[in-house]
């Protein structure tokens, strides 16, 4: 592998990793606040991709507007799912909520399949920029550039919301101790709803971009959903910089495994990383080690 090829793969890895990172943020925020692996998160990404597709193909909207609509729809969907399926189970054992989340995930996938059919669809050509840039002997797809740019903007916005706004403060408070936050007058329900809104909105952004780069089908959310979860665990679940780092590292590792010639084992790499991380350092790269209290 020449140095140019290596750089090329690096760019590919960062762009797919950015998508994982965007989706991983949703997992990590939800896990941080209610300790739930939201299995339906990947499917919200899928819904986002379909809403974006419908806006562009049927309503002839420009790409950015389609993304905004997808963000709005998915944000509301995320809040609705939390309200109907997860909120009544907030004090139930975790296994109960996890099974519910799996149920919601399948519900979204197969309702969508019943609505639009199982076949793959592609966004119209050029809807998300499809030029090639040549920089120092490297050919960079403008899509990849956009993906990275959008991801960086989203992450800065998210950092701002969480660190500088009142609702962000409430999110951090509920995440560290829900009961104490409640006593301080924070509405835990509203804060959790907002977390789902934020996470689902980010998933929609990732979904629309993924849809434009690849093809869309009702089961498309499964693999990136799992990968994003692995990225979240890798970076340290509950930690927002961890999710970004985990996503990008996972993207890089996957493209490197493919580049070395093991493309059939690309998906294997992610799961092997997951199990190694869980065994060696369950709290992830940037996570805090929390001891169990009796």
């Amino acid at each position, binding site marked *: 592998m020449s140095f140019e090829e290596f750089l090329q793969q690096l760019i590919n890895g960062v762009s797919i990793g950015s998508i994982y990172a965007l989706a991983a943020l949703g997992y990590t925020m939800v896990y941080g606040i209610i*300790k*739930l*692996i939201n299995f339906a998160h990947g499917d919200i990404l899928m819904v986002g991709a379909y809403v974006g597709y419908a806006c562009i193909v049927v309503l002839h909207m420009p790409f950015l507007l389609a993304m905004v609509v997808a963000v709005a729809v998915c944000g509301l969907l995320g809040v609705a799912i939390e309200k109907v*399926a997860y909120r*009544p*189970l907030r*004090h*139930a*054992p*975790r*296994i*109960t*909520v*996890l*099974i*519910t989340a*799996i*149920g*919601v*995930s*399948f*519900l979204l*996938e*197969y*309702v969508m*399949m*019943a609505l639009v059919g*199982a076949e793959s669809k592609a966004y119209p050509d050029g809807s998300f920029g499809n030029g090639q840039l040549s920089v120092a002997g490297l050919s960079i797809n403008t899509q990849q550039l956009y993906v990275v740019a959008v991801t960086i903007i989203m992450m800065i916005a998210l950092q701002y919301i969480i660190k500088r706004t009142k609702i962000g403060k409430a999110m951090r408070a509920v995440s560290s101790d829900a009961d104490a936050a409640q006593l301080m007058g924070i509405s835990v329900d509203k804060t959790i709803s907002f977390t789902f809104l934020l996470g689902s909105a980010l998933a929609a952004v990732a979904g629309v971009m993924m849809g434009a780069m690849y093809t869309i089908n009702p089961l498309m959310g*499964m693999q990136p959903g*799992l990968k994003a*979860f*692995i990225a979240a*665990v890798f970076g340290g679940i509950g930690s927002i910089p961890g999710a970004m780092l985990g996503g990008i590292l996972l993207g890089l590792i996957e493209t490197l495994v493919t580049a070395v010639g093991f493309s*059939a*084992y690309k*998906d*294997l790499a992610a*799961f*092997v990383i*997951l*199990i190694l991380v*869980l*065994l060696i350092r*369950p709290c992830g790269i940037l996570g805090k080690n929390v001891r169990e209290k*009796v």
Partner: protein
Amino acid sequence: MDTKKKNSKRPGFDTPVEKPAKKLAPWQSGLIGLGIVAGVYLILRILISTGVIGAYYQGILHGIFIDIIAALGLNLITGITGQFSLGHAGFMAIGAYTSAYVVLHTSGSMVSILGGILLGAVLAGVLGLLVGIPTLRLKGDYLAIATLGLGEIIRIFIQNTDQQVLGGSAGLTGYGVYAAATSPAGFELVFFGAVITFVVIRNMVKSSHGRACIAVREDEIASESMGVNLTKVKISAFVVGTFFAGLAGGLYTGYTGIIQPKSFDFMQSIEFLMIVVLGGLGNIWGTLIAAAALGVLNMFLQSFAEIRMIIYALLLVIIMLIKAGETPFFVKLRGLFKWSKWNLPFVHRKTEVE
């Protein structure tokens, strides 16, 4: 003042002491069980031989028995011991491919078939032991994701093997159907496979080991302080559960006549989870009923795969919401039907506190 009069003022004291129900000796209940098994076997065998149950329905029956075997194994791991596993289909794949390989490379006689199935189950159990030792240290949702990952690793690995050895993604075939409706002893294989599984799991649950499993599910820290060896209990449950997943895999091989990696994906694990949840986590009789109910449901919905999955998904969510019983709609519904008195198998409503 005599004690009777004094106690009559205090509620609960004047009720007569109930005589303990007569407990059957082990040999008595064993004999009854044997009788039931023999009776069910004879009835089904006669119905099949006389053609009342045709080949199509017999095939569905076989599918149900195979599901029962795998789901009982999962119930031991997830329902009784409380260790959430999402990789059950992966272990089933180990059993399926082992038995197919053995039958394909030996004479294909009954001995080699039984040997292949047994070897497949043992290998699945051994793999369960090897991966259980490190992964069962994880708890709850982490374990779920790790086992999901394991199941996927097994599947992807088989998919990428040499075409000549395990058939790659196209699948493995040509070993003959030995557990289908058309095979001579197919019914006996799946029926007695299911009976053995049920008896082993039931006896395990009733033993002190089973009580230890339940204790671990209810509270790990409390059971550990009562002297339960957490690692040993979890791993042994996992090994037994994966052994039966392998057994189900070996029978599945002979049932379909072709095995492909994609038959053992995450969705298959969810199907087993669905049976266990529908039957009530930890309820082994419920698993039998749920497997039969879902088998019949699948028969009717065979050509509507999407609707089937939508119903599955809705059932998963609704059962969990009913179980937790905090959704206003379901609280009302429960009041309306008062089903707490019915003691339905699928409404496992033990109050669980985390």
